[in-house]
């Protein structure tokens, strides 16, 4: 057990720090800047990292990485987080979609997409969830029908993060409704400029529009864009989602230092909120949760770097992070008393980002697997408890009741 860098790791960290100090400051941007501005800076930063071999440190050289270790990747990510550089736009592509291509696409397709995604030139989204297929993702009803030498796709996707600025997407579609739901799905990749693909932003309760509805109307997809066998789409989707579990689970919201500064600035009685014993107990628990998540992630990386399959501990990440954020933002706003009502950047705490997080947290508990789905996953895959009783087992998809 060693929470310090080894000599080689500290040399690597020093190299990374120097490079970041020379480059990152040119690419910082406020979290509240307009999306188009953030995206432009994010692309430029990604290209800058790619040119220096830092875009995906642990990827093999053939793919534009440096063949580094997972620990080196983590060191880079840690050091990068010290700067206000935007990185989120590429997480779905580099963390989930491209790894899925690497597993299921032909070599030519892999070579075509890995580089541009790495350099921030192309962005990917995942066309998975539907109005009738969220937690029950395998109930997707977007149809892909083989007609005149290509797949004809019709249906509707929803909650598609970043579809409005994405170039390509992974598409889960039903190719056979006459068999039980898990066995009638097929995975494709699709150009978002394909005729018949229409993206409509969703206005979230938090004010922004990260998600979209995506309508597919007679969209044509060649068979060469199929990933895995016809009818094996669920297996492909599980690979994508497994990568999501490793990618997700990062701590969200204000850092401990920001919480401390805020609590110090709010009066309570003759002292500040920070002096309040009840608040101090909460502060301690938030810290313990954040550190617990951070070290849990590091344990996962240790397993990876020893060549082992990461343990199930990574599945707790998003569950804890989302609930912690909700609890923390609720409490920090309440500390302000009436003043907590103000969601006006000129007056509000942390320039309004606290209120933004407060309104965003309910969505975080739903996106990427609800609390309930994640607890099912822990109970079933980690603890070995029985799966839920399924009314739809063994029934052809077309015969399932829909409630509509």
């Amino acid at each position: 057990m060693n929470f310090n860098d080894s000599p080689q790791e500290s040399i690597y960290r020093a190299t990374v720090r120097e490079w970041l100090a020379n480059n990152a400051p040119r690419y910082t941007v406020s979290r509240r800047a307009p999306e188009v501005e953030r995206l432009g800076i994010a692309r430029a930063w990604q290209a800058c990292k790619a040119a220096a071999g830092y875009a995906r440190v642990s990827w093999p050289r053939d793919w534009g990485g440096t063949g580094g270790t997972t620990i080196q990747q983590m060191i880079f990510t840690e050091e990068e987080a010290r700067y206000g550089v935007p990185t989120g736009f590429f997480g779905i592509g580099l963390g989930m979609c491209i790894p899925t291509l690497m597993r299921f696409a032909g070599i030519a397709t892999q070579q075509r997409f890995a580089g541009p995604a790495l350099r921030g030139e192309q962005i990917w989204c995942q066309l998975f969830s539907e109005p009738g297929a969220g937690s029950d993702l395998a109930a997707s009803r977007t149809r892909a029908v083989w007609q005149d030498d290509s797949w004809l796709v019709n249906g509707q996707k929803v909650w598609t993060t970043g579809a409005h600025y994405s170039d390509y997407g992974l598409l889960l579609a039903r190719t056979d409704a006459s068999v039980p739901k898990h066995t009638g799905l097929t995975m494709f990749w699709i150009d978002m400029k394909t005729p018949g693909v229409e993206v409509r932003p969703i206005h979230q309760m938090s004010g922004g529009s990260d998600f979209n509805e995506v309508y597919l109307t007679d969209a044509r997809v060649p068979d060469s864009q199929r990933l895995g066998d016809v009818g094996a789409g669920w297996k492909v989707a599980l690979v994508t989602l497994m990568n999501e579990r490793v990618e997700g689970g990062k701590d969200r919201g204000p850092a401990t230092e920001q919480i401390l500064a805020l609590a110090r600035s709010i009066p309570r009685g003759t002292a500040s909120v920070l002096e309040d014993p009840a608040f101090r107990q909460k502060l301690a628990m938030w810290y313990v949760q954040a550190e617990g998540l951070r070290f849990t992630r590091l344990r996962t990386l240790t397993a990876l770097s020893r060549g082992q399959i990461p343990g199930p501990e990574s599945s707790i990440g998003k569950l804890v992070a989302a609930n912690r954020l909700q609890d923390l933002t609720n409490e920090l706003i309440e500390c302000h008393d009436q003043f907590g009502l103000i969601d006006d950047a000129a007056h509000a705490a942390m320039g309004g980002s606290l209120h933004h997080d407060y309104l965003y947290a309910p969505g975080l508990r739903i996106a990427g697997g609800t609390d309930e789905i994640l607890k099912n996953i822990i109970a079933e895959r980690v603890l070995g408890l029985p799966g839920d009783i399924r009314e739809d087992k063994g029934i052809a998809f077309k015969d399932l009741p829909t409630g509509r």
Partner: protein
Amino acid sequence: MDFDFSEEQKQLQQGARRFLEDRCPPSAVRAVLENPELSFDRGLWAGLAQLGWLGTVIPEVHGGLGLGYVELCAIAEELGRAVAPVPFASTLYFFAEALLLAGSPAQQAEWLPKIARGELIGCFATAEGPGRPSSSPTTVVEAGRITGTKIPVTDGGIAHVAMVLAAAAGAPGLYLVQLGQTAVQRVPLSSLDGSRGIASLSFDGARAEPLGRPGAGLHLVDRVLQRAAVLLAFEQIGGADRCLQMARDYALQRYVFGRPIGSFQAVKHRLADMYVRNELARSNAYCAAWALDTNAGELPIAAASARLAASDAFGFAAKENIHIHGGIGFTWEADPHLFFRRARQLSLVAGAPAVWGEQLAAALSSRPASSVVECGT
């Protein structure tokens, strides 16, 4: 960087688990719990001495194995899993740690070899009544003689020697007091966890020798508690993990409405909640084990974090384990209450969680501001 036990440490831990499964089944815990005459399992204690565990971190020059604290943490986890009814924590995490931190060469040479051989049980006496131990204890030392009462003292009924918090000329300090003296009266008390005995210790002019510099008492007590907190956290994690295992096994066995209860989401999700708390505790405790082993500057914060997370995890797992067992879990004959009792014992013995929450908040708010800037999207 490396955030796991090494292969050797894992082997040590697996060996410890097998030994304790054999030598410390629930019936052994129950034997101590149910017999007021038995304060600990003498046979098991002798077995631990034979294996060398009592000297895990004691230097070889004093007859110990001279291993690191991560090894001791690995053993502690297994003792917690087994709810072992032995004065391991009192003797090693508190008494021996105080000696190692502040004992004179003569004191170390006198006591450490006896501990390693299993000939000496130590205890740590700081409490005098409800509430946190005071910085001005009513137990006093004058001209090498100690007077006052400590209550409760874990293992006070069976220890040979105590480390006592007392004031001399108004300054608090730790004092070594041999408990065989006629000027020492000990009264065993009934304990919430009867598998770990407690007693009151009354001193009426007993001989006492100071440990460390006079006046350094409270600082020394804090340092001992920090180190003990890390080791206790591993016992708590072992216990919490065992509770989860028991509850999960029972949920698979027990059928109602034609299904195992473990197939109902209300039960599954409770088990998942136990798992989440256990993992958060384990991750915090690993950092604390490293900090303890290397005397890292992070120790005060890491120890408090580990203690908070582990107390939370074991407390939750112990009570939910009873609940998942249903009515049978509430009976004396079923094992869940052994863990419920031990969870409470462990969360109080080095100071209640709220005390550590306050310490952690204080440490965080006095930490120099870090260089972390706003993160990206």
